[in-house]
Every structure is written in structure tokens, then in C-alpha cells.
């Protein structure tokens, strides 16, 4: 079982991840009345970029050069932490949720440092917006994890997934709040509307795309794969921790598949029906998520007292 989970982790995170943004793009196009690209389009992009040479803007230092590798490495490690079907193979890394938070933050830091290194206006603007929003988003992520950790009595992701197994957890208001709060994390980390717009060509409005503007070739391929892998991480995490799942490994895998598909449809729907919000309102949205999580926390604490 554990070996199968490990295989799904690696295969899914490395190879299937680009299918997620591809599917969302494709669904979105259909919803908007376009034919749109095939769900396999991200793979073609990656192949094209991988075959291209690198380009370094001058003057840049090793910070710029290493950032894509650091981001890809942290994202790769994060993939190995996320349980599938309630199982965490471990890989000698454990499955602590706080390590995951740290890895995501490290990747974000690497990209922001590279933006600083290039000195490009758009890259810096994107990075500074990303970091500004991350202040609220990371707090939100930690709060959501705390909410999931309370019933599990552990910060291990597999334990948290096990605690959310079955229908009993859904009688706890705190879990509902956690699920809502994590929905915002999904939107933020995948760089989607109403917080960010992955399709825009308008440099002035970019958040997650901004720091990518200076990169080309294999660097860009690594960064785009990392963005796709982040889709995998947060969507799988959302399905494992905050969407209903039952039974043993096999049943949970089916639930995982259904959950991720459902989330993809949800993201595509949101992007179709919603305009992007004003940038200064996005922190308020994330702070609202924090408030929701706090309510959840209060509910758990009150429940614990009773």
C-alpha cells in the first residue's frame, strides 16, 4: 500500500501536475464559449521551453541563477510530504504540516530574492505583491492546519487526513470553517481569480506571473512546472484534509480523484464568473479567511471545554 502511495505521489506530483492547470484552462475555455487549448497544452509548453537555451539578464548573480532550482526542489520535497489516500510513505522526511509551510515559504523567498536580483520593475512588483499577500496567506495556512491538527492531535498530515476520515468530523463547525479558509489558500497558491489572473498579459496587474517574466528556457520550464506542482500540492491537500473521504486506501483514492476533479471545476467556474478583485482588497479577503479560521478555532476550543 505504502509503495503504491509513494508511486502515486511521485508520478502524480512530477508527471500529472501539469494536467491540473491544463484541465482548468480547458474547462474555462468551454465555459466562456471558446474551444480553448487541450488539457495537454502545459506539457507542450514544458517540452518547448526545455529545449531552449537559458538567458541571464545582466547584471544578475547566483541568486537569480539558483532560484528556479530552489523553487523546484522545495516544491519537489513538498510533494513528498503530501499524503495520498490517507497514506504518507515518509521518504525519511516525515509528513509534518509545518515543514510543508516552511518549504512553500522557502520557494516563495527564492523567487522574490531572484526578482530583487534582476531589479526588473515587473518582477519586483509581482514579488512584492506576492509577499504582501503571503503575510496574510501564510497566517491563514497555519490557522487552517491548526484547525485540522486539533482533532488529529498531531501536525502529521497523514494523521490529520485520518482524523478527517468519515462523516463524523463534519458535525464539527470548526472543520467547516477550516475547509472554507483552505479554499482561499487554494485560490491564492494556484494564483487564480479573484486574487490573481493567470491568463493576463497586463504586466501591471501581475502577481505570480511577474517574477517569471525575466526567465526563459529551462529556468522558465522549471518555474512553470513548480506552479503546476503547487496546484497538485494544494488541491491534493485540500481533498485529503478538507473534503469528505471514507474508508481504506482504495476508497480514499477514489475520493481524492473526485475531490481534485471537483476543485478543478470549482476553480474554472470561479474564474469564469468572477472578475479579478482590486489588489488592495485581496489582503482583506485573506484576512476574512483568517477570521473564519479564528471562529473555527473558538468553536474547537469551546467544544473542548464542554
Amino acid at each position, binding site marked *: 500500500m505504502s509503495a503504491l502511495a509513494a508511486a502515486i505521489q511521485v508520478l502524480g506530483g512530477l508527471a500529472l501536475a501539469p494536467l491540473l492547470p491544463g484541465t482548468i484552462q480547458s474547462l474555462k475555455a468551454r465555459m466562456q464559449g471558446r474551444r480553448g487549448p487541450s488539457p495537454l497544452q502545459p506539457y507542450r509548453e514544458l517540452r518547448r521551453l526545455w529545449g531552449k537555451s537559458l538567458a541571464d539578464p545582466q547584471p544578475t548573480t547566483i541568486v537569480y541563477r539558483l532560484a528556479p532550482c530552489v523553487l523546484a526542489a522545495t516544491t519537489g520535497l513538498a510533494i513528498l510530504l503530501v499524503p495520498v489516500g490517507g497514506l504518507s510513505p515518509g521518504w525519511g522526511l516525515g509528513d509534518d504540516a509545518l515543514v510543508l509551510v516552511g518549504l512553500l515559504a522557502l520557494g516563495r523567498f527564492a523567487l522574490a530574492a531572484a526578482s530583487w536580483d534582476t531589479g526588473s*520593475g515587473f518582477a519586483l512588483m509581482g514579488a512584492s505583491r506576492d509577499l504582501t499577500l503571503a503575510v496574510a496567506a501564510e497566517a491563514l495556512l497555519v490557522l487552517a492546519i491548526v484547525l485540522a491538527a486539533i482533532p488529529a492531535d498531531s501536525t502529521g498530515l497523514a494523521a490529520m487526513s485520518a482524523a478527517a476520515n468519515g462523516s463524523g468530523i463534519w458535525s464539527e463547525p470548526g472543520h467547516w470553517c477550516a475547509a472554507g479558509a483552505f479554499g482561499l489558500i487554494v485560490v491564492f497558491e494556484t494564483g487564480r481569480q479573484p486574487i490573481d489572473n493567470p491568463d493576463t498579459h497586463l504586466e501591471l496587474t501581475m502577481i505570480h506571473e511577474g517574477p517569471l517574466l525575466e526567465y526563459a528556457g529551462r529556468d522558465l520550464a522549471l518555474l512553470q512546472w513548480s506552479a503546476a506542482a503547487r496546484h497538485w500540492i494544494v488541491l491534493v491537500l485540500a481533498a485529503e484534509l478538507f473534503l469528505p473521504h471514507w474508508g481504506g486506501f482504495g476508497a480514499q483514492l477514489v475520493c481524492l480523484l473526485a475531490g481534485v476533479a471537483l476543485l478543478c471545476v470549482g476553480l474554472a467556474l470561479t474564474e469564469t464568473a468572477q472578475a479579478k478583485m482590486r489588489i488592495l482588497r485581496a489582503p482583506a479577503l485573506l484576512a476574512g479567511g483568517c477570521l473564519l479560521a479564528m471562529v473555527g478555532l473558538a468553536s474547537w476550543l469551546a467544544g473542548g471545554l464542554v
Partner: protein
Amino acid sequence: MSRPRRLRAAEPRQGVAAIEVEGSRWRESCRRELGDGARFCGAYASGDRLARRWSALFADGPSTRVLTTRVDRDQLPTIVDLVAAAQWDEREAHDLHGLRFEGHEPLRALVDHTVDTAAWTTPVEGRGVHQVAVGPVHAGVIESGHFRFHVVGERILHLDTRLFYKHRGLERAAEGRELPDGLRFAQRACGACAVTNAVAYAQACESVLGLLPTRELRRARTLLLELERLYNHLNDIGAACAGIGFASGNMAFAALKERAMRLNKELAGHRFLFGSAEVGASRLVLASQLAGRTRGQLRELRQDAAQVWREVRFSGSVQARLGGVGVLDRDSAARLGAVGPAARASGLEQDTRSDSPGLWYGSSFAAAGPEARTGDVSARLQVRASELESTFEVLDDLLSAPIAADIASPSGPKAPIGVARVESPRGETVCVLEHDLFRLRRLHLRTGSYANWPALAEASARNLLPDFPLINKSFELCYACVDR
């Protein structure tokens, strides 16, 4: 069929008065024009180095007065302190014709790109102020334009624009051509306003040739102008949706625009209506059957456009983005000489269609206005939406009878100088032509986009940097119009 409004002029043509002014009385004469309520609508240099002349145009209802003065040693007094709208005209004349304007300080470079940044940007200083440079190469399919934002954090303090990247020398190339040939140069100044430019040139040309447009000619031109406005407004509302990442609105309007452009192709043979207007004649033929079918198609388009607009307008996430953003107040709009939907959104009731006896707008035609004249992005979109209604109305009216080919009647008086003002989808376009016998001596085209660019810079100040694309798209100005 309703009759055209304001038949004050005896013939169906805008009036022109050419007035020669002494150099020493230049400012005084311009001040008097403005004091009489006339509106500045352009200025241009003509002649060569030995006999340089400088002219300013003032619009008053359906007539235009052209004040001209001889320029001694390339120097003359500025009028930019009297009318800020003359700023670009004077800067352009300095860069292209070497004129110097006393009192226009500092006279920043506009067309000349050889100068360093400090020579064309406004100095903005303060703690934490920095510049963000965008373009001239953009990430999307956008024409060449460089925007230099002076910002604190995400807040825009001031915007300097540098356009004129692809100066084509169209006006100069047209010089020496036979008069009817010049139309092709004016038309190609811009793709999205091809009809406006061509009709403006044709009208200016006809006034110096003594040609009067007939009923059929006027109807055909009005039909073409409104078809142009139709596809432009549909495009521009869709573009504003793209500016806020509202893809479904963008796609719906793109589909409507495509229908309008296919209709253009069917009626006039070209999706952008190129080659549909000419000097002294109209070849547009719409038999009653085709006119009737087109009318039906336009009615369907009208219903669909109204429905999509309702859906966009009442979408909460869209509403949250439009209000209070990119405000151009009424005074600034008037001061900077804003025209078209942008001016009307700010509360200026100015629409050159009301003053176009050479076209076929009924006496009931009135400038559209938004529900609240707030001058923000929301108001500019609303103006376009309500203008779509009047455009459909005019088109429906025109198509109620067949349209035949016709030529102008050669019975009119010959004006000394050709001037025509036509309302383009982005505002008033002014075309001036001077001639020697049957050859062009000077062609000057000042489009609605040219007039509105300074207003866009003004409206962008005090807003958030990521809101600029939206503000820009709410004006949806053309870059090619300045690259003439």
C-alpha cells in the same frame, strides 16, 4: 426619415472661416475666440522654412474658425496658458517643424525620442517615489507606447506617456498628391477609425472643390460611420472586461464584435470598412432586400448586446472594480480638450454628430450621457453602452429605405481651406487640408485619440498601478492615430 438638425448653414456642410492674424495679436485673437465660447480643436504648422505659418482651429457649433499667423524666425507666443489642450500640438510642432513657443516652459519633447528621459518627463520628487517604466514592447499584442509611472508603492502620482514610436510621415507623404488621392493616406492613419478619417478627408476635400453631398451620399456615410462605431464600442466594452480579468464578458463582447465585423464585410466588402468612403461619391448600394435583412440582423445583435451588457453591468465583482476608478472630472476634461465618450462621461455635452449637417443625423439626435456624470471608468462604459443604443437606432432608421450609389453635386461654393470635423468612436476627429490648385499642400489629421491622450494621463494619477490597464481600456485610445 427625420431631417438633419440645425439647417442654419444654407448647404449641408460645416462652415469654415479662415482668418489671418498678425503675429503680435496672436494670443489676443485666440483669447477672444475662447472667450466667445469657441472650443480649441487643434493647431498645425504649414509652409516651409521660408514662409512658416501656424494655424489654430476653434469649433463653434457646426462651423470652424481657422486662425492663421505667419511665423517669424520660427518663433511665436504660446497659447498653452490660455488653453491647455494646445499642449501636444505645440510640442509636436516644436519637434517636427522646429517652432519655438515663447512662454511654453518647459517645452518637453513629444515626438523627438533622441532626448534623455529627463527632457520629456515631469520631475516628481519625494520620499519613496520611484519610476516604473512600461513598454514600448508589451507582453500582449499592443501597439508601441512607453508609459513612465511615478509611483509611491502601488499609487500612481503622475504618468508621462511617450508615444509616436512608429511615425509614418503620412501627412508629409500625402503632400503633392492630387486631392482625391489624399483620402487613402488619411484613411490608413488608423484601422479602427478608417471610416471617420476617410469621411473627414472627403468632406474637407469636397468643401474646397465646391462639391455638396447629396441625400444618398450623406445617408451612406452616416451608415458607414455608425457601423464603425458599432464594432468599436462592442470591442471597447469587451476590452474593459479584459482589463479586470472578466473573461466571460470579454468573450461575449468579442463574439458580438465579430458579428458586427462580418456584417461590415457583407455590406461594404471589408471588415474594417476600408475603402468604403471616397471623395465626391459613394458606391455603397443596399437594395431594399439586403437592407431589410441587415436590419433584422442588427435587431438581433441589439438584443444580444443589451443582454450581455446587463449581465456584465450587474455582476457584483465587475461593479466593485469600475466605480470611482480613473476619475476625469469635468473641469479637467474641458481644460485638456477631451472629446468623445470620455468627455461625455465627465459631463461635457459635446458630440460632433449634432453639428454635422453633411451627415444624416436626425433633429432629435442628442449627445449620450451616463446616468451619473462621474467621469470614472463606470461612466465611460455606460456612455458607450447607451451610445450603442442610439447607434442601433440610427442604423435601423437608415436601413428602412434602400441606399443607392450617388455622386456629389458640383454646385457649392469653394472654401479657401478644407476643414471637417467628424465624430469617431473615440471622439471628434479634425481633418484640415490646404491645396494649390488640385494638389495637396498640407494635410493635418487630429483624431479623437490624439485629443484624449493627455486626459488619460490625468485620469490615471492618484489611482493604483494595477488599475491602470482598466483605466487605459476605458479610454481605449489608438496609438496609430498619433503615428501618422
